[in-house]
Structures are given as structure tokens and as C-alpha cells.
């Protein structure tokens, strides 16, 4: 008797949190449309988005969805090509089921579609679009991407205050993102008393960096800063030592990915970064996300998975705020009202109503140690600084 009773009690206790929350969503779904690359040069990022979206949907729909209705999405391949993105924009705008649009990946594609979303009055949530002019497209154009104006000064803190660089060499991806980041970083670095001795922009499809690195070497820096994504960041790291450079390296948070270590091998050991997303961070949002991601996909999530996951969470928060059966204008208005949306990247996401971007960013300092990402501890950093 007793054991059975005990078991029942235990079961009740275990189930309590689930029963307490809303019943799983059912009925006609609430849709969001995604315009992004599933084929072509940027296809890998579209695949990462999908993983993040699906996980977020499970989460949201188990919690009761959008006022009882499940959230669902339709992902259309744009190849990050502006021509296809404008076609898709018309498709989504005309599809009455679509309540919000997410994407596109690159600024040329996203910003080409913006006028169509703005005119038709459908919110475009460009969650990887950090171009400073992106949200100037109108009051339906929002972005929860990390603002470079916020995050590059943190990188400058890491490079100059923590690691003690005085003569900095910057290598940056020569795109709208990399160029904007470089401009902010250079200003922040100089404000912190360092000197940027050389800044070299490279093309996204570049693979050979030896000559660039000789140029960097001749500028005689005492530290390198990479404003890169993980594939190109790993390529640069792999060639740095081959041209006889031994300076410490700090990279922007966008290199954070298990892939960075896979592609960079031993060469990325000792590289510092500060990222808004780190799976071992103890915060509850991060830990829930990471555990569930690993359970579902059997691998570590990376930054783009996290951005996609967050974007859906933010979209869902806005849809819930807008109320049941809200129209598109009500959804737009909800973005002005949502506050402290739990977020993997931001902790709590809050939009600035003026810029329609998420304000502030927190970050963790990381370092690659023995082929693994680890929290960058201040003592190790100090020894790097004094070793020179």
C-alpha cells in the first residue's frame, strides 16, 4: 500500500509542473514565414536556423503555443539572393496565415525585401541583420541581432584591457557586417588607449591568408583581432603560425562554434573570444536550450542555432502579447510592448523603440584550451599578457 501510494505521490509531484502549465497547443496553427538560404553559398546557415526553429517550436507548443494555437512555420529557400527574397516577400505578404516573417540571412537579400514588408505591413524580424541601416526600413522592420555598436566595445575590452594589446592588427571580413564591426572596434580600441596599426579586409571566399599575414607581421603588432565567422576564422588561425607570427589572438564572438575547433585543429588553441552565447554558461535559459538541443540533435549548438531559437521565442512573445487572432498591425504594436523576453543570447531581450533593435548585450570571455572552449580565466589572461 505504502509504496504504491508513495509512487503515486511522487508521480503527482513530478507531473505537477507540466500539469500546472497550459495544455499543449492544438487547432489551427499560427504561422510565421522564413526566407533564408537552404541551397547555395550560405546553405549551412539555413540548416542551422532550422535546427534552432524546430527546438523553439517544441518548447513553445508544449507550453500552450499562441493562446492555445500551435506555432508553425514555412521555410522558403531564397539562396540569400535578393531577387528570390523579394518574390518570397510578396508570397508571405499575400499569405493571410503568416503573422510574422523571419530573415533573410544576408543584408542585400533582407534589405531588398524590407520595402515590400513595410508597405504591406508585415513584421520582418531580421535576426542576423546587423547592418546599421537595416531597421531604418520602417516601423515594421525589427532586429534582435546583436548590435555591433554594443558588442565590439566588449571585444575591445577583452583585447585591450584583459589581454593588454597595445598595437592591434585587425583582420575583418569585408562585408557590411565586418566593415561595420571594424569601424566600431577601431574607435573603441583607440578610446581604450591602444593603437590599431593595420586593418585588413578579406573576401568571404578567400582561403589563402599567408600574404595578408606577412603584411600584418610587418606592421609589428603585439596582438591580432579577428572579425570573422568560424570557417574563415579557423583558416586564418591555421596559417598564422606558418608565417612566423606568435602574437596572441582575440576573435569576435561570431567564431564561437564547435566547428571552429574542428576546422582549426591545434592552431586555434589559445585564441580568446567573447561571445554572447556559451553552452556551459549556468543561466537557466542557456542550460535548458543546450540540454534539449543535445538531446534532439546529438551535438553541441552553436551561435547561429541560438540566434534562430531566440528569434522564434521573441516572435512568440510578440504574438502572445498581441492577443488571440491579432492582425498584423497588432503584432507590430506588440513589439513595442514586450519586455524581458527570456533569451539565450541576451538573458532578457528588450527592444529599443527608437532603433527597433535589442538593447545591450552581455558576453562571456572564452578561450580555446586543449581543443575545447573554456571560460577564459583572468589569471591565464594575465600570464599571456606578461609573457610578451
Amino acid at each position, binding site marked *: 500500500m505504502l509504496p504504491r501510494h508513495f509512487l503515486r505521490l511522487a508521480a503527482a509531484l513530478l507531473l505537477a509542473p507540466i500539469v500546472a502549465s497550459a495544455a499543449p497547443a492544438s487547432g489551427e496553427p499560427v504561422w510565421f514565414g522564413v526566407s533564408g538560404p*537552404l541551397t547555395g553559398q550560405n*546553405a*549551412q546557415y539555413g540548416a542551422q536556423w532550422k535546427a534552432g526553429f524546430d527546438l523553439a517550436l517544441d518548447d513553445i507548443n508544449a507550453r500552450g503555443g499562441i493562446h492555445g494555437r500551435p506555432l508553425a512555420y514555412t521555410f522558403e529557400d531564397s539562396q540569400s539572393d*535578393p531577387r528570390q527574397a523579394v518574390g518570397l516577400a510578396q508570397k508571405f505578404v*499575400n499569405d493571410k496565415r503568416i503573422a510574422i516573417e523571419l530573415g533573410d540571412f544576408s543584408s542585400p537579400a533582407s534589405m531588398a525585401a*524590407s520595402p515590400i514588408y513595410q508597405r504591406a505591413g508585415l513584421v520582418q524580424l531580421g535576426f542576423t541583420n546587423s547592418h546599421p541601416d537595416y531597421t531604418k526600413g520602417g516601423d515594421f522592420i525589427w532586429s534582435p541581432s546583436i548590435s555591433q555598436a554594443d558588442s565590439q566595445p566588449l571585444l575591445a575590452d577583452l583585447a585591450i584591457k584583459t589581454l593588454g594589446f597595445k598595437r592591434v592588427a585587425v583582420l575583418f571580413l569585408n562585408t557590411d557586417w565586418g566593415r561595420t564591426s571594424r569601424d566600431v572596434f577601431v574607435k573603441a580600441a583607440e578610446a581604450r588607449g591602444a593603437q590599431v596599426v593595420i586593418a585588413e579586409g578579406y*573576401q568571404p571566399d578567400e582561403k589563402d591568408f599567408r*600574404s595578408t599575414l606577412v603584411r600584418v607581421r610587418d606592421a609589428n603588432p603585439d596582438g591580432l583581432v579577428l572579425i570573422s565567422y568560424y570557417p574563415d576564422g579557423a583558416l586564418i588561425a591555421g596559417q598564422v603560425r606558418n608565417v612566423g607570427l606568435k602574437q596572441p589572438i582575440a576573435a569576435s564572438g561570431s567564431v564561437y562554434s564547435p566547428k571552429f575547433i574542428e*576546422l582549426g585543429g591545434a592552431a586555434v588553441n589559445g585564441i580568446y573570444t567573447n561571445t554572447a552565447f556559451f553552452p556551459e554558461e549556468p543561466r537557466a535559459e542557456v542550460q535548458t536550450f543546450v540540454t534539449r538541443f543535445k538531446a534532439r540533435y546529438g551535438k553541441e549548438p552553436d551561435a547561429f542555432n541560438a540566434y534562430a531559437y531566440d528569434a522564434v521565442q521573441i516572435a512568440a512573445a510578440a504574438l502572445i502579447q498581441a492577443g488571440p487572432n491579432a492582425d498584423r498591425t497588432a503584432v507590430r504594436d506588440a513589439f513595442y510592448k514586450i519586455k524581458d523576453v527570456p533569451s539565450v543570447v541576451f538573458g532578457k531581450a528588450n527592444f529599443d523603440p527608437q532603433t527597433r533593435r535589442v538593447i545591450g548585450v552581455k558576453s562571456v570571455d572564452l578561450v580555446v584550451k586543449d581543443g575545447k572552449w573554456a571560460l577564459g580565466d583572468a589569471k591565464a589572461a594575465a600570464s599571456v599578457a606578461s609573457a610578451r
Partner: protein
Amino acid sequence: MSFTSFFDYTVNGLIIGNIYAMLAVGLALIFGVSHLINFAHGSVYTVGAYIGWAAITFLHTPLPVTLLLVVLGSGALGMLIERVGLRPLQGAARIAPLLATIGISFVLDILVQLLASPDPRSLPSQLPNWRLQIGSGTIGALDLLIAGIGLASAALLFGFLRFTQLGWAVRATAQDRDAAQQMGVDVNRVNQSVFAIASALGGLSGLLVGMYYNNISPAMSFQATLKGVVATVVGGVGNVPGAIVGSMLLGLTESYGVAWFGTPYRNLFAFVLLLVILVWKPNGLFGRKRALPPEPLTGTFIAPSKPWHVPPWLLAGLFALAAVLPLFNPSPYLLQVLTNSWLYAALALSLTLVAGTIGQISLGHAGLLAIGAYASSLLVLDLHLPVGTSIIAAGLLTSLIGTALIFPAFRLRGHYVSIATLGIGEIVALTILNWESLTRGPIGVSGIPPLSLFGRDASSNNAFYWASLAAMVLLALLQWRLLRSHLGRTFRAVREDEVAARAYGVSPDRYKAMAFGFGGFAAGVSGAFTAHLYSYINHETFTSQISILALTMVILGGLGNISGALLGAVALVSLPEFFRVTAEYRMLIYGVALLLLIRFRPQGLLGTV
């Protein structure tokens, strides 16, 4: 620059040249025999890298076995490409096999992406990890292996071509295909062997380069083709030792370009080198002077096909249908796809005139779009011109700048024209990237005002649709009128036989300039419309993929055929949209559809005019 640095830059240039050489040798070999620039070569390179990756990951093969598997696998792929993509097109238009290789490359890239995921993968080197100090840098075992394989394969090829019977057959076929066949050479077998050898080399270089960078991805093939082609052409197409020297020269130019002007200028220098060499030596550095002049790609050797004349009443009916369509309240999506088609049709009109009627196959037409788009945007934003006027002005500017850019290349013939225009297209994009004071560099031009005409807003879906349709139809009518005049005949005369045309007192340069002038106007107008549609453009908006797409439209419709160009544009803009239901397979289906069309209608849907 100190001597140490100069030495380091030189070593780096040779290292990268070494890598280009492996690609260039294969391309040169194929060109030597089949007079074909094999655009699928970069894809074979990618497939080779992935075969190696699969062998190491799943079969845990040691290096020699991996190399062997890659050589066999890519060699077999080369034979397959020859058998499926090229042999059936013998005797068809010269241009058809070129388009076939583009289609094959498309299909291969998508297949790799579907099978191996688009994410870049690491490909750890299986070689010992020792490094040799050279100057202030080091080189590793892989550098030496790549150089060794490059040189050894060149030497082997040289011996093969000079001393073996099959080698003689290859050279005989290269010199004169028909004569070789009359002498009993099995030309198909020769072609197949050459494709096998070249592709085996291509796959091998993919594997080694992948190991070198510890990075392979399905997206790596286009750059490989591009750089390989440039290196080959610099050396003189069809010349194996020339290809090696050309690669080294290309590597060194890039390295010194970085040294003197900085990393963003790297590719700019590579393409300027290409143009300078072509203008100075139109057959490349080591092209034989006494060789037959390269034949035009269109014209003389085109399979005489009877073009299908679309009756005027049908065209008028279709136009009327298109014009009244918005009144029936169709979905904005359909309207947008058609609007995009009209804009691409204007581009295709321009290219069909240049490539079809006067026979200058251009692979750089995206550059003209970019010039038109930037011209109109900057005229409006910086000089406050009204939007409609700016579009006309952009067309005129594109016409002027485009013709001036291409002018030095007028003395080139055949494939060299395509490669020169490819280079010019890249130079335009890289100039846009680097000329920041004018173009705002990578940040791009944002806030481009929407379309307005005669002071009235024309940004609504319907208005934009009508405006782009009207512009396209006007350009088409103008071009039709032009081709019915003596100009049309003269253009074709230049295409068919430049020497004969000159003998009749026609100055080919003047007529080429006229064709590029008119074509530049049409492309510029198309680009300008696009800019006002997108509201934001940067150097990545008009990629070289668009040039290839435009050429595909034109060949598919039938070279020189105005209705064909329109049909090609509508078909190739709509098909990928049409195949959306097949999700991630849509580009694969699109590629296969393209290959089938080339296979069964090599002269184009409506035939060459």
C-alpha cells in the same frame, strides 16, 4: 619593403600558384583537345575532396589508398561527364557543350550539398606534421607534395602526349578533329581519356587543397573554376607548361598585390593581370602564334538551325495578356516573379545582341547591371536627380562605361572574349567594393528611393510591373527594329567571319562598340530598375552567378533571338519558383531540367538567328 618580406611574399605567391597549377593543368588539357572551357572542373575538384573525406572518415584509409580512390573516383566522374554531357552534343552549336558543363557543375554541387550537408568539414592532413623554415615562414610536407604532384603530373603528361600512341592521338585530335578521325583515331576514346586524366587531376587537387586548408565545403567549386580558368588563360589555353607558368604568375601577382595595396585588392590584381596579358598577347603568354586563330563561338561553325519564328500576332497577344494581367488581381507573388522576369529579360536582350548577333559571348554582364544600379542610385541620392531621369541617365552611363571597359578586348576572338568579359565583370564588382568614397564600399547604398515616374509614385506592385514591362518591351522593339536595318546584317557579318567583313570594308570594332553600347543601355536600365526595387545594393547584390544565369537564358532561348531571350528569362526566373514544392531538391531538378533542355535542343528553344 624589406628583402625578408619580399622573399616571404614571393614564397607565398609560389605556394598559392602551386595550388592553382593543379587546377589549371586539367583545364588546359581539356581545352587542348575539345576546345572547351570546362566549367564543371571546379565541381570535380569538390567531388574529389569529398571522396577523400568519405574514404578517410568511413573506411579509415591510409594516404596512398585515399589518393588512389580519389583518382579513380574523379577519373570515372570525368568519363561520365564526357559521355553524358558532351558526346551527345557533338556537331551541335559550339556553345552548347559550354552550357552543358555549367549545368553539370550545378548538378554536382547540389548533389554534394545534399549528400554531405552544406556545412564546411575538416579534412585533416594524413601527412607527417613537420615544417621547413623558409625565410621567416615555414612550409610543410603538404606544400612539397602538392608541388611534387603538380610537377610530376605535368612531366607525365608531357611524356604521354609526346611518346605514347594515345598521346599522339590526343594531339592529332587537338589539331584537327576531323582529320584525326579520317586517319582512324577513335576521337571519342581520346576525349574520354582526356576527361578521365584531367578530372583525376582535378579531384586529386581538391583532396590536397582540402587537406592543406583543413576545410572542404560544397561551395568551394566556383572559386576553384574561376582561378583555374584565369591561370590557364594567362598561360595560353591548351598549353600544359603554359598553365603552370600562368598559375605561378597569378599566385605571385596576388601576393604582391596584397603586399603593395592590401588584401581587398588581391583579386582585382589577378583580373587586371588577366586583361593586360590578353590585350598584350591575345593567345595568352605561351599560346602558339602559328596556331589557327580561335574560331568564333557562334557563327561559322554553328549547326544551321531553322529558327522558329514566333508569329507577330502571338507576340502581340502575349504582350496584351501580360499588360492586362494586373487588372485581374493575381497574387502579388506571381506579379513579382513576372516583374523579375521582365527585368532579367531586359538583361537577356542586351546579352543576346552582344553574344548572339555579333558573336561576343560575354560572361561579365552582371557588371553592367551593377553599373546601372549604382549609377541610378547615386544620381538620385547624391545629385538629387528625379528617379525616372536617373534611370535613363544610368542606361546611358552604363552604355558608355561598359563599352569603354570592353573596348581593349575587341581584338580578342572566341573563348578569350568570354574570359576577358568574365574578368571585366569581376573588376567592376571589386572596384565597387574598393572605391569607398563613391560607392560606400561593403556597407553598400541604402535608402534608395522607390520607383517614381514623371513625378508620380510608381512603387506599388502594379505600377512597378507595368513600368518594367513597358521598358522591356520598348527595348525589345528598338532592338528588333535595329536588327532589321542594315546594322543587323552587318552585326551578323562580323559574327560569321570577321576577316571577310573587314574585306568588305566593315570595321568590326565600330560595330562591336555599337552592339555593346546598345546592350549596355538595356542592361543599365535593368540594373537601375532593380536598384529602385531593392532599395539597398552592395557589391554582393550582382554576383558573377547572375552573368552565368543571363548567358544560360540567352543560349536556352536561342542566341540572337529576341523572343528567345524573353522566353529564356521568363523560364529561368520562374522555374526555380515553380519547383519550390520540391523543397531542397528544387535546384537539383532545375539543373537536371537545364541539362535535358541542352541535350534535346542545343540550338536553343526558339533557335539561333
